């Protein structure tokens, strides 16, 4: 399959970019909710609109009432979300949680997917237990009790945890903390007894929860996939989330770069437009190259994932790492080239820097994934 968008995908890109530029732009969403210190960090109204656009259920199978689209399509929406810094539950709910629910019982699907597709429900995922992403290590315990389970432990960096109707929790049902086997995923509804959330505001104005489970009682039917066999679902969820985060990162990079190139064409110093200074031109041209390459790696990873190719895993880490590098460069150059005003809250470029930082950290930063590329390559 050629590494560019098909006509259908190009059409989707047009409508997504138009819609999000209009409804999801920085003033209407990110600044709006931030300046009101909104406890969700996003707008439910927009979430409903995204449902009407058909975005919320993109990755849900058609049999389950979704559109049965792939990661290329989800990535198209995510790139526009990144470009507009649009706060929304899309990545956590429609990509990560939806991927997990794809492996769930028809009962669970029936319980949760309609709400997602309607834009009524918001879901979160609880994987990390320390400040750094390390999914190989799952210590949170789920012990058998009756015909259900008892959940004990803690999770951190649960994006939109406090706003969610259900949280996909990765817990250990057997083996020791580092074991590959023995992981089970649970669909944990909000307000269960024994679950306490400590939501904190992050640098990008999104909300993330530290969650503690103190003997939370769960029915057996809360299990997603196989007991002890959750690693496979977890990996599928991680791959989807990482390639999705990469796509959003490409949008963040592109948005920051476009804004900066525009500024280079307007700002005058020493009697000329600063875009005429060759040192800045070369840095801008280098940045352009990096962003182009990051996008190519991301599309490649999306296609491989949609094809179910074995190399998808490697390319996903390549894309996640490359995007983190390219977007990191875009926001750093963006602030530096804007100069003093780039440091003011009044200008948007700083918001790109904040979002980039949180997004790069989510599901593994550039160092984590570079190391993963080495490990997957046998060195």
């Amino acid at each position, binding site marked *: 399959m050629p590494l560019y968008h098909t006509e259908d995908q190009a059409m989707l890109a047009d409508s997504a970019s138009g819609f999000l530029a209009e409804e999801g732009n920085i003033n209407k969403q990110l600044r709006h909710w931030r300046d009101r210190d909104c406890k969700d960090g996003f707008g439910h109204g927009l979430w409903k609109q995204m449902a009407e656009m058909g975005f919320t259920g993109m990755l849900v199978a058609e049999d389950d009432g979704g559109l049965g689209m792939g990661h290329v399509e989800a990535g198209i929406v995510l790139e526009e979300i990144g470009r507009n810094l649009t706060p929304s539950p899309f990545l956590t709910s429609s990509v990560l949680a939806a991927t997990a629910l794809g492996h769930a019982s028809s009962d669970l699907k029936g319980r949760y997917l309609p709400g997602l597709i309607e834009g009524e429900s918001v879901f979160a995922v609880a994987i990390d237990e320390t400040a750094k992403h390390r999914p190989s290590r799952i210590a949170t315990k789920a012990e058998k009790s009756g015909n259900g389970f008892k959940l004990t432990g803690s999770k951190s960096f649960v994006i939109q945890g406090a706003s969610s109707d259900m949280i996909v929790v990765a817990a250990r049902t057997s083996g020791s903390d580092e074991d590959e086997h023995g992981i089970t995923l649970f669909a944990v509804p909000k307000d269960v007894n024994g679950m306490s959330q400590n939501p904190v505001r*992050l*640098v990008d104005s999104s909300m993330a929860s530290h969650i503690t489970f103190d003997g939370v009682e769960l029915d057996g039917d809360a299990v997603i996939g196989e007991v002890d066999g959750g690693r496979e679902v977890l990996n599928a969820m991680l791959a989807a989330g990482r390639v999705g985060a990469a796509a959003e990162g490409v949008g963040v990079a592109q948005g920051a770069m476009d804004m900066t190139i525009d500024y280079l064409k307007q700002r005058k*110093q020493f009697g000329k437009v600063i875009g005429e200074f060759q040192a800045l031109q070369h840095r801008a041209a280098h940045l352009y190259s990096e962003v182009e390459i990051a996008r190519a790696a991301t599309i490649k990873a999306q296609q491989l994932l949609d094809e179910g190719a074995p190399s998808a895993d490697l390319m996903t880490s390549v894309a996640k790492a490359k995007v983190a590098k390219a977007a990191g460069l875009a926001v750093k150059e963006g602030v530096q080239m804007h100069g003093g005003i*780039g*440091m*003011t*809250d009044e200008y948007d470029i700083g918001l790109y820097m904040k979002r980039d*930082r949180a997004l790069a950290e989510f599901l593994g930063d550039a160092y984590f994934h*570079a190391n993963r590329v080495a490990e997957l390559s046998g060195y």
Partner: protein
Amino acid sequence: MSDLENFREETKSWLEANCPEEMRKPVRDDSDVYWGGRKATFQNDAQKAWFEAARDKGYTVPSWPKEYGGAGLSPAEAKILRQEMAAIGARPPLSSFGIWMLGPALLKFGTEGQKKRFLNEIARGEIRWCQGYSEPGSGSDLVSMQTYGEDKGDHWVVNGQKIWTSYADKADWIFCLVRTNKEDKYKGITFMLFDMAGEGVTTKPILLISGNSPFCETFFDNVKVPKSYGDDCPGFVGEINRGWDVAKYLLGHEREMISGMGGGDRTTAIGTAMKRHAAKTGDDIDPVLRSEMALFDVDALAFTAMAEKFMDEMKAGKGHPAQPNMMKYVGTEINKRRHELMMSAGGSRSLEWESDETRGGKPSREWLRTKANSIEGGTSEVMLNVISKRILELPGG
């Protein structure tokens, strides 16, 4: 016993007698700093006692002449005082842009009358000054500033806007670059001194991406600036239309102050601290991040040696006069890299913006604040221009 040894003994006992215990604790934040000025209040009695003792001894500005409120210390004596204050961790009794910036300018360019009045007010902490240089339209290209003072005979009428005026909302007076001749870019600027309480001066604090800041926008709407404040005390420094000479002198002075900073003082490897920190939270440092830290520590520790060499050479009058530009460039870039790595090591915890665990988002706010290091006081791009022109002597461009 030599005079200097005598002086050291005297200084020790004077500090012992006059610097209260509380004033020997490290400064935690701006509220621990005494800036003086009309609106100033003391944080506590200790701060008051320490300031007054230092003021009366001339130790708010030890090396300034006695008649201007200083103690007239020789460089050697001033060094001893610094050493002994450092030895007990004594806080500076008074901080101000008057001491750091305007003072040096007046000592070099001021009239006797200006020195007598303004230096004493600064030394005694009576007037707090702020600096009016940058404008929205003129950042790196400072000389293109537009704030204009119309000549009305015995005074000017100033209109325009300044930006990045630190603590303008708290300051009493401002030293300000004002265009007084639109024909001549360089020889058309006057270095004016005037009261912020005067008609037509308003200030607006600037919110940074890192949060609140001391920076303000300052607006001048028909502000009347007298050409003289009395006998031998003009309302400007140096000559009319030659304020750029004063400004350039101060910029160099400022760059030298900054160039000493930015990792130059640090001597411990970042990796050591980061590993200890990660261990506390049950994390370990990813191998690739560890390597990046190692490569950073090579640069940072090497720069520490550079900073030491730079200071040694400055004291000895060796080294290229434009070297502070290199130090400023590298020091600020290294500091930005340091905070990038600290954020990576801190992981999701370091992303928190308001939590108690992060003392109100200290890691992320400091990280964002470092991004200004390579912009304020001369951008990295300007530093590189200066290095290539003045040190490498590359042509035109």
